[in-house]
């Protein structure tokens, strides 16, 4: 007993020390060494995309095949994860002081990671290497400096049924919200909902509406929420109005991956992502063959197409910064991103690629590429990781409950300020 108690205490003591030093080293990520030297060494890439055997072949065969030819002294180990578990991977990696040399992550994650010095700044010249639309690089920046390059984009657009429009005698897609509301009402017949804004994440949906209404999320320095103004409230109120009209119905939203309302014909318009094309092609190829689907960019005071996607960045603590930098650049070349986009039905965010067969064939991707100047993105504050999680829980009660749009937005503003205050 005595012996055991002692060994127990010893174990706890030793372990705590290890854990605490662990926290210590994890945070000591100093500025990366210069990336000017020769690209060599063994580096690790963490990626939530290039899924499965096909993705692996694409990445390690096609994409990295070329990379190996150009940089024979760099060995790349790939750590595949899923989007759902990406945060856990990054959190544990950071805490353990073992962040992969090159990381791929979502839009909106760059400012928090850049602000804490976890990812390395990239030279501005990389922004000029390819024909980037200026807006597309916005999510890659923090404080005006470049920290990441886009690999694939996914945009939020409105998809509609051309046959329903024709049936109702509607000739053109709505150019502002009053038209949208009227058209939605008109299309709400035969048990259909005119407009389904609820089958994508409410956060991204509301943000698209906020931007289309000329609103903004945060001030340029990321210190102040700006969505609390009338523009923000109107965006949320618009959903309530649609519900009151009967032309949108929260209870008829569909889950990701399940056939959506425009696919089943139970809805005439919906907010969705550009990736819906692939799903329709698989589940309802006849809709594409018969040209029954159309898409447009949401607009009110201005057109706005919310841009999400996957970016590639370089860890600030990489031991082989030159090799890591080379890989970042390589993964963002037009050839690399076209393959990645094609595998998952995403938008390759470069105009150079607008004439490729893939883009021509996928109408949602084509529309997105043509409208990149209207791309808007979420984030913009170092406290974004926390704030983004508050949006759905705070705004949803205004849609399914009795809370007013004004109160819900005010509450969200309060939470956002508290989160920014904690930074």
């Amino acid at each position, binding site marked *: 007993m005595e012996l055991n108690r002692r060994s127990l205490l010893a174990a706890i003591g030793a372990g705590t020390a290890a*854990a605490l030093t662990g926290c210590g080293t994890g945070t000591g990520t100093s500025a990366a060494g210069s990336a000017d030297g020769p690209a060599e060494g063994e580096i690790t890439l963490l990626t939530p995309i290039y899924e499965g055997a096909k993705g692996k072949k694409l990445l390690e065969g096609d994409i990295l095949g070329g990379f190996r030819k150009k940089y024979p002294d760099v060995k790349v180990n790939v750590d595949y994860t899923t989007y759902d578990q990406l945060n856990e991977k990054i959190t544990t990696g950071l805490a353990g002081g073992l962040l992969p040399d090159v990381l791929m992550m979502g839009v909106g994650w760059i400012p928090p990671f850049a602000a804490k010095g976890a990812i390395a700044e990239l030279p501005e010249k990389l922004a000029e290497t390819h024909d980037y639309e200026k807006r597309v690089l916005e999510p890659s920046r923090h404080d005006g400096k470049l920290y990441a390059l886009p690999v694939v984009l996914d945009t939020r657009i409105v998809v509609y049924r051309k046959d329903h429009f024709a049936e109702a005698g509607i000739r053109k897609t709505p150019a502002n919200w009053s038209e949208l509301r009227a058209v939605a009402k008109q299309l709400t017949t035969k048990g259909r909902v005119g407009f389904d804004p609820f089958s994508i994440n409410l956060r991204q949906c509301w943000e698209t509406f906020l931007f289309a209404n000329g609103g903004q999320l945060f001030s340029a320095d990321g210190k102040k929420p700006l969505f609390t103004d009338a523009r923000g409230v109107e965006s949320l109120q618009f959903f309530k109005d649609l519900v009151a009209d009967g032309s949108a119905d929260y*209870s008829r939203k*569909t889950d990701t991956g399940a056939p959506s309302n425009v696919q089943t014909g139970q809805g005439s318009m919906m907010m969705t992502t550009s990736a819906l094309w692939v799903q329709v092609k698989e589940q309802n190829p006849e809709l594409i063959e018969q040209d029954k689907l159309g898409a447009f960019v949401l607009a009110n005071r201005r057109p706005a197409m919310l841009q999400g996607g996957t970016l590639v960045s370089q860890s600030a603590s990489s031991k082989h910064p030159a090799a890591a930098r080379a890989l970042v650049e390589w993964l963002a070349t037009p050839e690399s991103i076209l393959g990645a986009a094609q595998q998952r039905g995403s938008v390759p965010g470069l105009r150079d690629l607008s004439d490729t067969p893939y883009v021509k064939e996928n109408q949602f991707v084509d529309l997105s590429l043509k409208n990149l100047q209207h791309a808007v993105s979420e984030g913009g504050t170092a406290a974004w990781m926390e704030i983004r999680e508050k949006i759905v*829980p705070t705004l*949803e009660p205004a*849609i399914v409950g009795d809370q007013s749009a004004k109160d819900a937005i005010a509450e969200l503003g309060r939470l956002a300020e508290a989160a920014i205050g904690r930074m």
Partner: protein
Amino acid sequence: MLMVAPALLHASLWIGLPVLAAVVLAFTKYDVLTAPQFVGLDNFRDMLDDAVFRKSIVNTVVYTFFTVPFGMLLGLLLAMALHTGLKARGIFRTAVFLPQVTATVAIALVWLWIYNPGNGLFNALLSFIGIDGPAWLSSTSWAMPSVILVGIWQGIGMKMLIYLAALQSLPRELYEAASVDGASKVRQFFSITLPLLKPATFFVLITSMISAFQSFDQIYILTDGGPANSTTMMTYEIYKSAFREFRVGYACAQSLVLFVLLMGFTLVNRRIMGGTRGHS
């Protein structure tokens, strides 16, 4: 004593130590990117302001209150029925245990389809008898019952299995003696079976309560805590704080609350059951 040592050492290192770390971190601000910073009771103060977390505590208790007793009762009844010399009992047992063996993530996705308001199985069956079913998972009043149903469905298998194992170890002689004395089956159940099952019941009660308090996968897949936070639970909030918001210190503080609540419930249960050492 030596026989407990390996398990105890293992638990000290892989659970004790993390718990210790969690307790320490609960009083810090720790975002993984910078070193933990001692902030006193700030996390607990923030929690008082956190309406969603409060809601999650209520939801967790409600969920536990409905899944545990129903699940236990069903598990016991099924175990009793399948303990008999029924033909095909193996098939019945497997059917009941099946939900337990499949990864929650995949099977929760199936439930998404079953609950689908448009063409889901549930509403298709209801329309058969002329009822227009609701949108189960997107209605603030139906989402929780729907999640509870999945919880019961998934938990019965394990409860049945443990009761079944416990029934197997009961001495037959007692029943033979009781039969000779002319005690009815019902009487035998209440005066022999139930008291002898006490250790197993205590086990099932405590572990089901703990796992109900920690349900995560169903929520993650089925509702994401919505609509309007009507199904969010404590573990889900802890997960969000730690891994989505990078507020590890706050998540640890939330875990402490969860721990204290569970400990409280466990002690109350132990009082009610009057000790754990069988029918002493």
